[in-house]
């Protein structure tokens, strides 16, 4: 299997599988112990300047926003972030100066809502650096390789493009078919963060609906922080063990944060807060507006509950629940709220 071609993007988050195994052996607890703590404690303990971080969910869906706001509040710097269909999370982290390096599958956009003023400005002025390109499946499979403890995994993507040229992948000749095949190196984030509907105090977490790439990402990351709508009794988990997506031995911190995905969607529970997302997209057009957003929603509030009050409180949250559960149409007055 000769190497036919090599991408020249930065190799982000790769470890020698033996080195990673040793790290797991020494650092990941296999003990069923209470890991509950506050988001401030979790970020304080497990997110460090310079870390390579990634968020669960997809786009504006099931994103651990309480942790994102806390990272901004604690002023982390020089983070590298996985741009794995990262939208609001990466945009505000770049806007706040926390993230300065990105490997991009999808970033600097908000899907249908338009492009990210803050993220793009940072890249176009050199404040934030794109260190490598990849695709959504490519990132997902980089996490799968890491989840499996492998150095790489093959895929039939990227080949022939500049996305490959700026990736960290390599193309070799498949020894069976003789055809070129792309090898994606494993990606082990230093920290992955997830918001889930339910989790016990040990970290056994369940997710409802699509998993996106959370199964793989949770197994790829060295540290895993879970925020959950509710900390449930262990018994709830043990009654439905086939619903557990992230078992406790992968998890380092469990934080109970109702509405912890706001303003993103939590499937079955609450809808996107379009008004809030629009507010960010509007404010972030200027540096001043960006600063105003953070002053209002991060530095100007004590914690996530005060943030929730500020974005519209109970009335807003109830309205978002009704929309998500298809009991009210999009764009009702309550949804616009007073946020």
């Amino acid at each position, binding site marked *: 299997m000769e190497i036919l071609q090599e991408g020249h993007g930065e190799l982000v988050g790769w470890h020698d599988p033996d080195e990673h195994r040793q790290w797991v052996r020494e650092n990941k607890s296999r003990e069923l112990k209470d890991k509950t703590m506050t988001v401030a404690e979790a970020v304080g303990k497990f997110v460090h300047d310079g870390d390579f971080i990634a968020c669960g969910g997809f786009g504006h869906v099931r994103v651990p926003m309480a942790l994102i706001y806390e990272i901004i509040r604690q002023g982390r710097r020089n983070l590298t972030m996985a741009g794995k269909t990262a939208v609001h999370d990466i945009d505000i982290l770049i806007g706040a100066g926390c993230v300065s390096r990105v490997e991009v599958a999808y970033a*600097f956009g908000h899907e249908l809502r338009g492009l990210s003023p803050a993220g793009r400005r940072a890249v176009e002025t050199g404040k934030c650096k794109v260190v490598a390109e990849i695709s959504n499946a490519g990132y997902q499979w980089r996490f799968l390789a890491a989840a499996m403890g492998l150095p790489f995994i093959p895929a*039939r993507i990227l080949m022939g493009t500049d996305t490959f040229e700026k990736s960290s992948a390599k193309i070799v000749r498949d020894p069976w078919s003789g055809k070129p095949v792309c090898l994606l190196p494993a990606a082990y984030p230093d920290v992955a963060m997830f918001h889930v509907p339910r989790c016990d105090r040990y970290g056994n977490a369940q997710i409802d609906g*699509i998993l996106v790439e959370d199964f793989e990402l949770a197994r790829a990351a060295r540290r895993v922080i879970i925020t959950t709508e509710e900390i449930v009794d262990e018994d709830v988990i043990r009654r439905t063990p086939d619903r557990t997506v992230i078992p406790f031995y992968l998890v380092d911190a469990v934080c109970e944060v109702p509405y912890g995905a706001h303003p993103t969607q939590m499937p*079955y529970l609450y809808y996107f807060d379009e008004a809030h997302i629009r507010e960010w997209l509007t404010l972030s057009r200027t540096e001043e507006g960006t600063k105003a957003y953070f002053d209002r929603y991060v530095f100007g509030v004590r914690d996530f509950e005060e943030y929730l009050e500020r974005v519209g409180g109970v009335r807003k949250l109830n309205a978002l629940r009704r929309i998500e559960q298809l009991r009210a149409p*999009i*764009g009702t007055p309550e949804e616009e709220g007073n946020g």
Partner: protein
Amino acid sequence: MAETRYTPTELLACVAARLLEDGKSVFVGTGLPMIAAMLAQRTHAPNLLIIFEAGGIGPQVPVLPISVGDSRTFYRAVSASSMHDVMSALQSGYVDYGFLGAAAIDPYGNINTTVFGDWERPEVRLPGSGGANDIGSLCWRTIIVMRQDCRRFLQRLPFITTPGYLTGPGARAAAGLPEGTGPYRVITQLGVYGFDEETRRLMLLSRHPGVTVEEIRANSEFDILIPADVPESAPPTPEERRILREIDPIGMVIGG
């Protein structure tokens, strides 16, 4: 007269929908592709299988999803799965059609959605591949929906995000991409394009009502193959327009 009072987006949606065959599968994103797939399901292709890259498979969508991971994309689905699952299905040949958007395209259907200017210090930074490279590499037939003008129909792209036919016939297979795949149609506000079998270059298949061949030529940096006799795209029927309003009642994608 009534039939001609349609918006440009309505036309695009109808043209795209008509390309999708019943009993086949389609990988869709949000926006126009989603609307086209839903329109196809409600007209000639009730048995079109819709798949979303975040894991939603075969939903009965109650309301137009805003995001590819939106809970609407797996509402009453046959499976609410994972990206690994659906991307593997794509890689294994289970997906017939895929939709892509593009900031720029070249004569071989290669696509840029990453950057204009220097990659390291770009003039314009765009979101990157997302699932586009995966869809463009692995789907049997890719349908590209985009705006056409001289800054978007380029002789040479600053960055190839997603593969079309690369440098021409045989180039995809030589690169290692799955055989028999590639861009199938390009739909713009001016017309519908395919790719010439021999050269794998962009070729006009139909002009939209009222559009001239000259306009089509004028809105491309490269030469588009234009056969002698090019038909007009059929406009949206009243029935198609009625269904589009049903799908997108507040005009989120279709417009006012």
